[in-house]
């Protein structure tokens, strides 16, 4: 597949698309935690790094097969997510934000000082198992599962927690359970993304996973529209491509990047697709095709 693609597509573009795919996986994980369930997580890069290092160490130091490393990465990240999530998410209020900032920093410093993680030099020579096909097959599977989840009863429960936690509890939703589960799934995806990242770049170091990385993923979710899957994908594509596309403004790149975000937040504060509802899209589509939309008597999106 790779070879086939390389005949038609410039290798540079291919690389960007792999990166976009990896970022989408990470961003969708964060979207589930923050966009859908409303729990602000500012340490997504920390879970990504747990996945990356777990995968790298298992591959380089123990010679484990890639699929094992990938799965272990996700599970390890999810496990740490649950460990810090349970005590934090039992509380009402935005404690998760503080805890995740601290947690990501702790993780970074731990890896910086851990011999098996290569300390400051990181880990190199990671087998490059990540390719276009793998990443995008995973993206498709994860998008489908995510979409299915959000249209179902547990999905509605998660949204209700974001909207009004007290009312959600009063409606029978076990908010602590659902918050922790959302966090577990989101961090699992971060771990998977981290592993894919490590096996793509073949080299990782603690600098790759600083606070700004967490902020980048948060930007993708917020830009696209909190809770919206197509929105998150769109936000990810835009923000992954932006540094490349903005290369022409060279030194003023960060200025443009910041300006872009500010402009979008002024005119579309709910994100690009945050106000778009699937049911409205369906209606508009029906109208455009000449059919008058009937008042919906079935489920909406």
């Amino acid at each position, binding site marked *: 597949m790779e070879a086939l693609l390389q005949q038609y597509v410039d290798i540079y573009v291919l690389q960007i698309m792999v990166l976009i795919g990896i970022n989408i996986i990470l961003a969708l994980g964060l979207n589930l935690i923050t966009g859908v369930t409303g729990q602000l997580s500012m340490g997504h890069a920390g879970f990504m790094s747990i996945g990356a290092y777990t995968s790298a160490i298992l591959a380089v130091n123990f010679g484990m097969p890639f699929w094992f490393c990938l799965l272990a990465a996700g599970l390890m990240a999810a496990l740490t997510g649950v460990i810090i999530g349970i005590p934090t998410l039992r509380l009402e209020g935005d404690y998760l934000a503080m805890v995740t900032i601290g947690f990501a920093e702790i993780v970074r410093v731990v890896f910086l000082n851990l011999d098996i993680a290569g300390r400051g030099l990181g880990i190199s020579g990671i087998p490059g198992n990540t390719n276009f096909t793998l990443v995008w097959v995973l993206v498709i599977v994860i998008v489908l599962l995510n979409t299915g989840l959000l249209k179902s*009863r547990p999905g*509605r429960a998660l949204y209700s927690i974001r909207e*009004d936690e007290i009312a959600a*509890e009063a*409606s029978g939703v076990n908010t602590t359970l659902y918050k922790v589960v959302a966090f577990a799934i989101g961090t699992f995806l971060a771990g998977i993304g981290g592993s894919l990242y490590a096996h793509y770049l073949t080299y990782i170091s603690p600098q790759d996973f600083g606070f700004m990385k967490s902020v980048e993923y948060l930007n993708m979710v917020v830009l696209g529209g909190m809770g919206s899957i197509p929105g998150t994908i769109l936000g990810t594509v835009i923000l992954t491509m932006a540094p490349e596309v903005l290369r022409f403004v060279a030194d003023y790149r960060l200025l443009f990047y910041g300006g872009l975000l500010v402009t979008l937040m002024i005119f579309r504060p709910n994100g690009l697709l945050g106000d778009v509802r699937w049911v409205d899209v369906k209606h508009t589509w029906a109208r455009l095709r000449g059919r008058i939309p009937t008042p919906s*008597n079935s489920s*909406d999106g």
Partner: protein
Amino acid sequence: MAILEVKNVSQEFGGLLALDRLSITVEKGEIFGLIGPNGAGKTTLFNLITGIYRPSSGELLFEGRPIGGLRPHRIAEAGIGRTFQNIRLFKKLSALDNVRVGMHSVSQAGFFSALLHTPWAMRKERITLEKSMALLDMVGLGDKAIELAGSLPYGEQRCLEIARAMALEPSLILLDEPAAGMNATEKEELLELIRKIRETGVTVLLVEHDMNVVMNICHRIAVLDYGRKIAEGAPEQIKNDERVIESYLGVEM
């Protein structure tokens, strides 16, 4: 038969005694009104019953089982639904979705089966949809199912909250000032709705400031002031009770 028993319940917040050895019994199938000046402790009592607070002392029994200190979602599962004084709707969700969340504990479709869209889960979803639409129709919002809850007019938002509380298929429903902000027509419709609710077998515990609504529809009324019960009885008795008049008007008649 008593459906709710509040036995000698006190609630302290720091130095403030919000409820003082309060005892109330609500009989199954009645519409019970709770009135009193602002700050009397009515919403505090609601929050206690629904598990938002844990009583400092005293006992709370629902259908004979103790519920004091249980988490709110367990109390909802047990069959107590409520609306809120300040309307707590899921504003960015549709009216239909608001009600469907109310059906959360009734529906039972588990995480994985819902995720994988198994036939069993899909059947549960369809039932949820049908029941939710029926509830929306009952409160008169059937044609607004896909409207965003936050965009509904105030009176309809109150009705939607009631529909969501009814979605729990509760035995007891707590309505916290449902008539607040409504005009005369809407209040008439509300009275009809409450009667309809009672006819389905649900007991109603109602906090209200509008005396017309209260006197019109309640079988029994309890009056709270400073966290204590100062009177209890049929509407006629309460209307003429000196202590009640005094607590509201602050003068002796």
